């Protein structure tokens, strides 16, 4: 069995990783701005990027279902395997829940999301200030959870690479030629 992830899985992983880090910084930056045309533009781009990440995650999930990832190294104890699976499930869950909460928050606050200014997403919630504020709290809390899980994810990858010296990190990297 191949010890590497498929090229598609790698591409999706790194593309989404890049977007998530970008979006986290973007999100914290834009919310601190005073209202200006730039702020409104940034919010729109944030929403458009969020919808894009959501769709990419769906593609990734579909790919993941059809393509079994390489097995975890044999040396891993049961507790580490459990942690790895739980962590990955949580990441997928958050990658879907965060854009969803953002979309719903936007609806509840009375701002429809129109993807790239072209494709209007339906407003599943009617305008409701209290609900909008609640969903904002949920969106922020989910993002802090994501940051915590990502720290664990990156930490685990580095531990595998530098301490366990196995292929868990490298199998998600481009293949070396030769």
């Amino acid at each position, binding site marked *: 069995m191949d010890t590497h992830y498929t090229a598609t899985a790698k591409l999706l992983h790194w593309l989404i990783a890049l977007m998530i880090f970008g979006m986290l910084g973007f999100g914290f930056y834009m919310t601190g701005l005073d209202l200006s045309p730039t702020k409104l533009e940034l919010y729109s781009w944030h929403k458009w990027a969020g919808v894009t990440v959501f769709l990419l995650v769906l593609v990734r999930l579909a790919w993941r279902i059809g393509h079994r990832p390489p097995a975890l190294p044999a040396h891993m104890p049961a507790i580490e395997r459990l942690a790895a699976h739980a962590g990955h499930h949580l990441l997928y869950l958050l990658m879907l829940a965060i854009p969803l909460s953002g979309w719903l928050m936007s609806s509840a606050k009375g701002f429809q999301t129109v993807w790239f200014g*072209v494709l209007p997403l339906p407003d599943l919630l009617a305008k409701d200030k209290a609900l909008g504020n609640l969903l904002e709290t949920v969106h922020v809390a989910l993002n802090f959870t994501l940051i915590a899980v990502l720290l664990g994810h990156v930490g685990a990858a580095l531990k595998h690479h530098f301490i366990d010296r196995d292929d868990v990190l490298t199998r998600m990297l481009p293949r070396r030629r030769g």
Partner: protein
Amino acid sequence: MKRIALALLASFAFAATTAHAVEYGEVQPDKSRIAFDYQQMGVAMQGTFGKFASALRFDPAAPQTASARIEVELASVDTGSEEGDDEVARKTWFDTKGFPVARFESSTVKPLGGNQYEVAGKLTIKGTTKDVVVPATFTPQGGSGVFEGALTIRRGDFSIGEGAWKAFDVVANDVVIRFRITAAAR
């Protein structure tokens, strides 16, 4: 005696003229609404003005004699978000301190047939007055009448949104003002 008879006669005559001329003019604020539609980053947004005063006279039998005057308290704006409400009160938008009221005053009312009318008048916002023509409908409803209509204005014409907001790429130039004013017959 003669004087009383004259007074009676006069009041009969008055009653006669008012009997066939139902005039709508008692505005019912709780059944009236002024809203506006605008586009922000390609997204349709809606706002309202909570406070406005209107004085109108409308006799369906003699629409030409009708008149309307509407004064909107700009500080009562609800743009859809608190941040937006604070923003539009500023000098670059409505400048509600300098120009607290927006005013529409009709000059002529032209019946277009059916329940359709064309109300021409002057719209003043932020110190700028423009001639506007407002298409409106009138629908009698029990003892009162409902006036409805919409008018598209360009915010740039009234310097609403200056400085950084002057470009129309983020907040569009066109703003649709929609009104529904209910007035009881007097």
